[in-house]
């Protein structure tokens, strides 16, 4: 009987466990997490902060799912030690877990840039349900919020706080919003739309210090401007949780390096999800973590299935703003593309050798899933290149 051990009960770890059980009815499956919650949706944390859903509604797999699949979920347990030779992990409560096959699905954490004043009360990041609880509990005495980082997460958390009546200013050091998802024109249009919703933006701006006494009172920018705010949320990207990889002596770069079996450089140790680096970079998105979790789970049972990569795609989940982008967005307009620009509408499809390699859809995301599918399948789309952005185009023709 095989002992399967999984560190991390996010989407990568949970999906792996599910697939292991499908293929191995007898093995012992243990999932370890330092959180106090079964598998839940990080994606919906902003809705929870906006008081739109309860904590229970975040949960994706309830207790009976674990019972039915005979998956042993250890909550509130943090792995702090490891012995790769004896194949044992050690937890902060001194418990020892031995394994035959190990999956590291430890996810990532919020990156904290070196800004002065981060320790003041009222400065937060958002990664897990505990962060969300802390933010929500602190909102009572807050009127103005400053968001550091104008990426997807920053805009979504900002929007959640706007919905509960806070005044929101977003500080971004790039000269445009969503630098990784939008080009200049797209970002400008998005900014217009969001300013009408009540957001303020400070672009091309650097934070000097979070000021205040014990509590946050505002954010000082490098150009000398002071933005008043009783709460600051920093969303400056994420970094993989690599402590375990170091303890085990795994090969790492930006994440834990994995091959197309999701194997690390050590026998019987796999990695998947935000923590894993496949072909040069960790993905940091849910669909990639799910696909990797599946492949890792299958391979952990001794079978062999290959991971071919996931198409990078993102959607902004702000009601009233339809925005999705995928793949190479051709920031410098160097590639072959088709563009439509109208009031509140910006669409761009990027081609390479008659295949779609990227897209931006703002104001109307109809057909986005089909475009992403065509990208993943590397379909030749030459017959419809000139029609694809026409009004009422039937995306089934892709």
């Amino acid at each position, binding site marked *: 009987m095989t002992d399967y051990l999984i560190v991390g009960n996010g989407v990568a770890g949970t999906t792996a466990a599910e697939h292991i059980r499908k293929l191995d009815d007898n093995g012992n499956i243990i999932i370890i997490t330092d959180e106090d919650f079964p598998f839940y949706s990080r994606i919906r944390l902003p809705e929870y902060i906006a008081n739109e859903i309860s904590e229970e*509604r975040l949960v994706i797999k309830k207790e009976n799912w674990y019972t039915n699949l005979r998956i042993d979920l250890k909550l509130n347990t943090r792995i702090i030690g490891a012995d790769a030779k004896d194949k044992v992990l050690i937890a902060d409560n001194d418990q020892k877990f031995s394994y035959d096959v190990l999956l590291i699905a430890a996810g990532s954490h919020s990156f904290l840039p070196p800004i002065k004043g981060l320790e003041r009360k009222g400065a937060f990041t958002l990664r897990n349900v505990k962060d969300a609880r802390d933010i929500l509990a602190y909102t009572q005495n807050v009127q103005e919020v400053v968001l550091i980082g104008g990426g997807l997460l920053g805009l979504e958390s900002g929007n959640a706080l706007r919905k509960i009546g806070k005044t929101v200013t977003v500080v971004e050091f790039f000269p445009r919003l969503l630098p990784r998802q939008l080009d200049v024109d797209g970002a400008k249009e998005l900014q217009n739309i969001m300013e009408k919703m009540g957001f303020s933006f400070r672009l091309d701006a650097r934070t000097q210090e979070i000021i205040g006494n014990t509590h946050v009172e505002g954010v000082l920018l490098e150009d000398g401007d002071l933005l008043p705010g009783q709460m600051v949320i920093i969303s400056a990207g994420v970094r993989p949780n690599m402590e375990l990889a170091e303890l085990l002596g795994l090969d790492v770069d930006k994440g834990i390096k994995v091959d197309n079996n999701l194997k690390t450089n050590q026998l019987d140790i796999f990695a998947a999800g935000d923590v894993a680096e496949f072909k040069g970079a960790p993905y940091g998105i849910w669909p990639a973590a799910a696909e990797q979790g599946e492949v890792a789970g299958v391979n952990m049972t001794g079978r062999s299935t290959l991971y071919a990569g996931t198409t990078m795609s993102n959607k902004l989940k702000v009601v009233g703003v339809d925005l999705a982008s995928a793949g190479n967005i051709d920031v410098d307009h160097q590639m072959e593309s088709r563009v439509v620009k109208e009031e509140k509408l910006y669409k761009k499809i990027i081609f390479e050798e008659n295949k779609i390699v990227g897209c931006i859809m703002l104001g109307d995301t109809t057909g986005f899933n089909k475009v992403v599918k065509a990208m993943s399948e590397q379909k030749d789309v030459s017959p419809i290149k000139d029609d694809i952005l026409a009004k009422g185009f039937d995306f089934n023709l892709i």
Partner: protein
Amino acid sequence: MDKYVCSICGYVYDPEEGDPENGIEIGTAFVDLPDDWVCPVCGASKEDFEIEE
């Protein structure tokens, strides 16, 4: 009956399979799913689904 795809994670709701694990019987049309049903893969709500032709 139409299939629906989750725009967040790509999960496809297929009425022929239902979602028995979450109490949805085989043969339940997407429109008949309860309003509080969520994507079993990523937790997205019903509004995040699009029809898959």
